[in-house]
């Protein structure tokens, strides 16, 4: 009956205008700059009557009466309602509503609005991550967010970057932030997440933002929200992107074959003059030295790269006209042009009650280095469903399979990157008969080109992340949410070393296989209670969380492979020691949070969390973490309303604590481990000393800042923070008499203080041309406050109170003695490296006139403090242009004041101490009696001058400015796409890391956060073209 009445009423409503007088209304719709907006929908509220504005923003409309309301709407703009009230002309200004879209942000255990938030957090939108030729999203974050430092230390496809939020807060434990995906903390393996599946990220920086994650929040938190479907038309989009990658820079030049041959000759000749002696004890004369050098040079270099037996004259120079047969550029052999392919298919859609999103992704990077590549297949399903008026539920599912080929890194002989630097150019890749040449003077039997064909280093990973939730609104003011997560990873590794050459030759081939799986289960149950008054709002969250992690591994190995190319263990005639074992951790937590806001002006928040972890000592199982925060929106105060140019001003402050529990499982126990077998008997050995006191690292964070918007164009945000880390987990160095060189203990305190500033400026906002620029800068100062030992020497670094964690401590290079060609170091007798201020016997006055004492005896020089590996400033500069259907953006990343000890360069500047190992072309400038003023010492074969020992000679300023990304895109006009029955089509060309400005000599100044290089694959630069089609 009711239904019938409503149908009749509806009909009456529709019919009635036919009897009413038709009235005409007109007007224009413009944007804030006064330019007409075409295509704006103008509808009479509650009816189907409406029209669309023309190119100039003009509209005219027949309306049923003069007392209706009109609704003006346009995508990306605020919707405006106007009561006609008898008017015949209505002009409307629509403003951008992008500001409004940013308002809701995902934070710890829920969402909030930007206005209401008391913490320091920044949202990074999908635009920053989509269609970037990187395997994992964190690499796209470099330079986007103040306080966030991202460092890629390897160009291995699939390798992850190091992410640090607001300075390194830990000495020994991990400084990696906690990653939370769709509300559930996840284990590492960021490259298992397809960046194209991410809707946005929230970087939680201070205690008010992160402290609710308790013992895992010390290094900040990054919350990942994946894409979801929206009610409305189902949208299918297909992205494809293809590109080529290459080594990021050329690095310093290496010697060619003639140069290394001549240089080696000179080294032998110098050796002869200095140390050569006949059987009877008579020293060599000049001719003896020449003869010795002629006789030994081929053996020293390994090969005579020339067409004749005696290519050098008595001055060690190549006789003009000598034909060079071999001149191998080993870098050209090891590095190649990579191809990147990235394809993604997304389907998003839904109804009011159910929305879905699913995607398929394929990513392949063939790598820039021999036998390094990465292939990934991803799939994602997100479903959210409203069961009834008070229950909603959803599931989010990521499934990933990847295959990586990654040659070994570090100083191992099988590392192709190192091979390219140390094998000299006189060594051929192939023998005359076309087979590989396995001989060279640097790493005999390791030809990187040959090994890339014969050896296998392959890793397969399967990852499933499945999160599900149910949300129940128990009362209008009370809701309950239960979230369960499964994060499962299964990894398989295969290292096959062929029986003939390289590492496997000694055992006639070796194959090792490993399998590990890691399962993290987490459950959280959270109650949320909200009470709104007329002027205030009160919100309380309380709940419990349990996370358990269990991993197992299995590895086995066999040697003696009779047939090459078959890596399966079944082929190995001799099985080796297998191993397996589980490992386990648990974290039990209770948490609560309260938020209060009064009048939309004053906001307060407080949180508390208790965590118990299995990793810590008997006496320190529980940790308690809290935070308080407040913000004040001054611009909402009545007395601020008159300041028209100030659109927003908010002050914020917070203080709180969090913890770091990133140390190994069972770290507190004294343990004996297996495998110490002897003479065929099984044995065990003490492997870990007991430490019952071991506890959390705690960080107390203070943050104060403001957010503002001026002239409706310029956003200015600034923050000051101080993060005090205490009880730092650190391998306290021990005397050998205690059996171990160190023990993990809570011994240190450190502080990171910093200033962050972000400026966003909408410079031009006409309807056709837009230009926005955004700049951020972070200055972070890291300072150790307290160590158990007064100072700890660790390689090239000195840890001590008052200094940075990565402070270099090195002998100070004083150049080359112009009279002898020997290296010199400043004595620095008054340094605190050695007790007493005794000038050693070997000291003499600096011949370069510095007035200081120098020595040519390395061990007599004392080490001094020389800068740090951490930058003084870093940040990004982003520029976005759009003109009609073109968009163009580029952004820079910069890092200033950081130093790198260039280990690679030191290897190639050995001054003869490693004869036969390749040299940098700079070594041509070595001291000779005719080249006395140089920074390169004399070149002597088997040199004992120690000039290439660790000193500031190889310490370089690694400040740099990099064009991180540049993209030009074109979106096809709608009229055209409609003709092809498409919803949208965009084509783009994009470049990553195309240009770097730096004084650093190596491949990549980004290579190391700690300032040391490890022969990792250099970074890459990439150019891609792509197409995005919306169906």
């Amino acid at each position, binding site marked *: 009956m009711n239904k019938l009445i409503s149908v009749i009423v509806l009909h009456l409503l529709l019919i009635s205008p036919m009897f009413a007088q038709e009235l005409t209304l007109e007007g224009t719709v413009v944007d804030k700059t006064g330019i007409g907006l075409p295509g704006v929908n103008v509808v009479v509220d509650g009816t189907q009557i409406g029209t669309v504005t023309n190119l100039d923003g003009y509209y005219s409309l027949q309306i049923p009466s003069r007392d209706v309301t009109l609704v003006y709407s346009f995508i990306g703009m605020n919707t405006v309602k106007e009561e006609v009230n008898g008017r015949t002309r209505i002009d409307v200004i629509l403003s951008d509503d992008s500001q409004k879209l940013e308002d809701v942000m995902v934070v710890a255990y829920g969402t909030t609005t930007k206005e209401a938030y008391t913490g320091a957090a920044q949202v990074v939108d999908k635009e920053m991550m989509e269609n970037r030729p990187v395997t994992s999203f964190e690499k796209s974050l470099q330079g986007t967010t103040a306080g966030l430092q991202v460092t890629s230390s390897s160009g291995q496809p699939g390798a992850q970057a190091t992410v640090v939020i607001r300075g390194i807060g830990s000495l020994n434990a991990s400084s990696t932030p906690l990653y939370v995906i769709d509300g559930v903390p996840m284990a590492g393996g960021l490259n298992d997440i397809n960046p194209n599946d991410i809707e946005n990220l929230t970087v939680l920086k201070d205690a008010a933002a992160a402290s609710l994650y308790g013992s895992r929040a010390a290094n900040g938190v990054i919350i990942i929200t994946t894409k979801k479907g929206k009610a409305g038309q189902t949208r299918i989009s297909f992205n494809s992107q293809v590109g080529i990658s290459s080594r990021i820079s050329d690095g310093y030049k290496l010697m060619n074959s003639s140069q290394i041959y001549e240089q080696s000759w000179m080294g032998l000749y110098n050796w002869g003059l200095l140390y050569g002696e006949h059987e009877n004890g008579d020293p060599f004369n000049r001719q003896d030295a020449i003869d010795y050098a002629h006789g030994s040079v081929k053996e020293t270099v390994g090969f005579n790269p020339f067409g004749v037996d005696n290519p050098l004259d008595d001055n060690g120079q190549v006789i003009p006209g000598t034909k060079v047969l071999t001149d191998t550029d080993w870098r050209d052999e090891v590095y190649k042009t990579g191809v990147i392919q990235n394809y993604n298919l997304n389907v998003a859609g839904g109804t009011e009650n159910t929305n879905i999103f699913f995607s398929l992704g394929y990513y392949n990077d063939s790598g820039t280095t021999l036998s390094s590549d990465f292939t990934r297949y991803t799939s994602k399903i997100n479903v959210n469903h409203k069961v009834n008026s008070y229950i909603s539920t959803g599931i989010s599912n990521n499934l990933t399979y990847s295959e990586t080929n990654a040659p070994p890194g570090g100083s191992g002989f099988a590392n192709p990157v190192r091979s390219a630097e140390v094998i000299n150019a006189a060594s051929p890749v192939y023998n005359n008969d076309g087979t590989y040449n396995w001989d060279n003077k640097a790493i005999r039997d390791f030809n990187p080109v040959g090994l890339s064909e014969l050896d296998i280093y392959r890793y397969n990973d399967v990852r499933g992340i499945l999160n599900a939730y149910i949300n129940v609104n128990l009362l209008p003011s009370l809701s309950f949410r*239960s979230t369960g997560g499964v994060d499962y990873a299964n990894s398989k590794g295969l290292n096959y070393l062929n029986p003939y050459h390289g590492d496997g030759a000694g055992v006639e081939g070796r194959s090792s296989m490993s399998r590990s799986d890691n399962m993290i289960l987490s459950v959280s149950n959270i109650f949320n209670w909200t009470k709104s008054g007329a002027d205030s709002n009160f919100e309380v969250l309380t709940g419990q969380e349990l996370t358990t992690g269990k991993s197992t591994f299995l590895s086995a190995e066999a040697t003696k492979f009779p047939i090459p190319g078959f890596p399966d263990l079944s082929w190995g005639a001799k099985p080796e020691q297998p191993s397996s074992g589980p490992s386990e951790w648990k974290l039990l937590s209770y948490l609560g949070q309260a938020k209060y806001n009064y009048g939309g002006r004053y906001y307060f928040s407080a949180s508390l969390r208790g965590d118990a972890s299995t990793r810590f000592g008997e006496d320190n199982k529980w940790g308690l973490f809290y935070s308080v925060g407040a913000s004040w929106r001054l611009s909402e105060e009545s007395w601020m309303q008159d300041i028209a140019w100030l659109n927003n001003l908010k002050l914020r402050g917070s203080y709180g604590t969090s913890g770091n529990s990133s140390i190994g499982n069972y770290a507190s126990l004294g343990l004996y481990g297996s495998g110490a077998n002897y003479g065929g008997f099984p044995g065990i050995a003490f492997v870990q000393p007991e430490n019952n006191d071991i506890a959390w690292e705690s960080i107390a964070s203070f943050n104060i800042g403001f957010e503002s918007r001026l002239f409706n164009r310029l956003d200015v945000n600034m923050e000051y923070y101080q993060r005090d880390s205490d009880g730092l987990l650190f391998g306290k160095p021990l005397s050998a008499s205690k059996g171990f060189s160190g023990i993990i203990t809570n011994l240190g305190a450190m502080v990171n203080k910093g200033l962050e500033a972000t400026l966003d400026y909408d410079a031009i906002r006409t309807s056709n041309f837009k230009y926005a620029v955004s700049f951020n800068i972070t200055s972070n100062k890291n300072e150790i406050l307290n160590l158990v030992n007064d100072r700890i020497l660790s390689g090239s670094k000195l840890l001590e109170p008052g200094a940075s964690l990565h402070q270099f401590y090195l002998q100070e290079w004083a150049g080359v003695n112009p009279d002898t060609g020997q290296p010199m170091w400043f004595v620095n007798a008054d340094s605190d490296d050695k007790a007493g201020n005794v000038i050693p016997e070997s000291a003499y006055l600096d011949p370069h006139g510095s007035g200081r004492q120098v020595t040519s005896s390395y061990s007599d020089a004392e080490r001094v403090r020389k800068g740090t590996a951490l930058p003084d400033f870093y940040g990004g500069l982003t520029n976005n242009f759009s003109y009609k259907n073109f968009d163009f953006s580029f952004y820079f990343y910069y890092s200033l004041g950081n130093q790198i000890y260039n280990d690679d360069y030191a290897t190639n500047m050995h001054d003869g101490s490693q004869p036969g190992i390749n040299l940098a072309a700079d070594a041509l400038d070595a001291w000779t009696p005719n080249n006395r003023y140089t920074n390169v010492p004399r070149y002597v074969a088997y040199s004992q001058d120690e000039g290439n020992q660790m000193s500031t000679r190889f310490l370089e300023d690694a400040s740099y400015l990099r064009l991180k990304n540049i993209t030009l895109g074109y979106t096809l006009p709608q009229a055209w796409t409609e003709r092809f029955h498409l919803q949208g089509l965009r084509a783009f060309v994009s470049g990553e890391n195309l240009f770097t400005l730096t004084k650093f000599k190596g491949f990549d100044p980004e290579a190391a956060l700690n300032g040391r290089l490890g022969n990792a694959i250099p970074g890459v630069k990439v150019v891609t073209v792509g197409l995005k089609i919306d169906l």
Partner: protein
Amino acid sequence: MRISTYIYIGLILLAQTLFVSCNDDFLNPQPETSIGDKDVFKSYETAQAALVGVYDQLSSYAFEGLFVPIISDLTGEDVMISPENNYNWFVAPYQMNTLPNYTFSESPWWAGYKVIFDANMVIKYAQQIPDATQEQKNRIEGEAKVIRAFVMLKLAQMFAPAYAADSEAPSILLAIEPLKHDDPDIGRAPLSAVYTQMEEDLLSAINLLEYKNDILDKGFFDKRAAQATLARVYLNMQEWEKARDMAVLAHQDVKLMAIGELSNGFYYRNSETIFTVAYTADDNNVYLSIPSFYYPVYGYSSMRANNRFVEQFSNNDARNYYFVMEPQVDSERYLIVKFLHNQQVGNAERISIRASEMHLIEAECEAELGNNSAAQDALHVIRSRAIPGVQKSSAVGQALVDEILIERRKELFGEGFRWNDIKRRQSPFVRAGDHWVRFDFEAGDKDYYRMTYPIPQSEIDNNTALTNEDQNIGY
């Protein structure tokens, strides 16, 4: 479902986690691939495994398996390392230029102290093993004591001056308890204290241990091995009588190798072996082994003999065959074929103590004691085996001592003795002939500091009881 049902489920979940948190095991999971240190000595099997583990660490390449013996010969005149194709292994020791941060100083130090630490655990708890017989307890404790003394002796020889030069000189760290990480650090003990400790340990071990004459047991220390080690300790102390007595006890009833066996390659224990590093190729790095460096092919193959040394062997000396000139491998220097691979690269035990050394100790002590005839007899045992038909020496006094010392070099080169033999007698150090790094200095010269290794920089940095002032002279 009704709302109340959800609340009910939620409460159950909460209650469950509350319950588990009260359970002690929940937050104290135990590892499954290792054993708590307190549990190790609760049974004989695990205690015995812990003892085996100490031997394993002793045998590692960083200590008795390779570094200590090879460095001991390279710090001498008889052999050298070829700089070719050797990847810089042991070049600094040969150049007599091992700096405090070099692995050749760091590795033996750290490896040695780890062995001592684990041995200290065994010594401390051996008598408390509940299910062991007294005999078993004694054996475990005794073996661990020999290991501790054996390692201390090697460390003292490397890192401290000679006992004969200054018995009160600062030496090594005297760690005789398993120290905890927060115990006070200990500094360098005077040499005399270290020698007293070694003597005490070995005398105690001789009491606790039995003779084990089965060749299969030679990978472990027995009473005889304790006596032999003590003979070495006394020899360093120039306690000639005590050294002789121990040496005689140690070689008593031991059948020396036959002349034919001298060329068998020293890769497996033989009749005169008192202790061998029972190296197995399957759980060790085969390239870091003695034959890998000594044998002319298959490994690093970079050890060479000095021509002046080779010339001292008479033509009819069976040991002359240890040296070959093979221009295809090395056109200039003598290759050494004393140490062979056993079928596979690096598959070789390293004979660490053998009876011939004990005869030579006996000879040297007797000569020093003026018992020329006894010394000549003892020397003749070794010499007549290698050189059939050789006449017994008729030298006396210093000439006899010198002859015995030369014989020691010939018999034991490559087995890790030369460095200490020069040092313990404060003899001159002279490299001549085809050495590519030469020296000529004697005790009292500035360069003599090279005969003592630097305390590793890491130890000085880590140990609060040490500063750079405590470093050995010359570094």
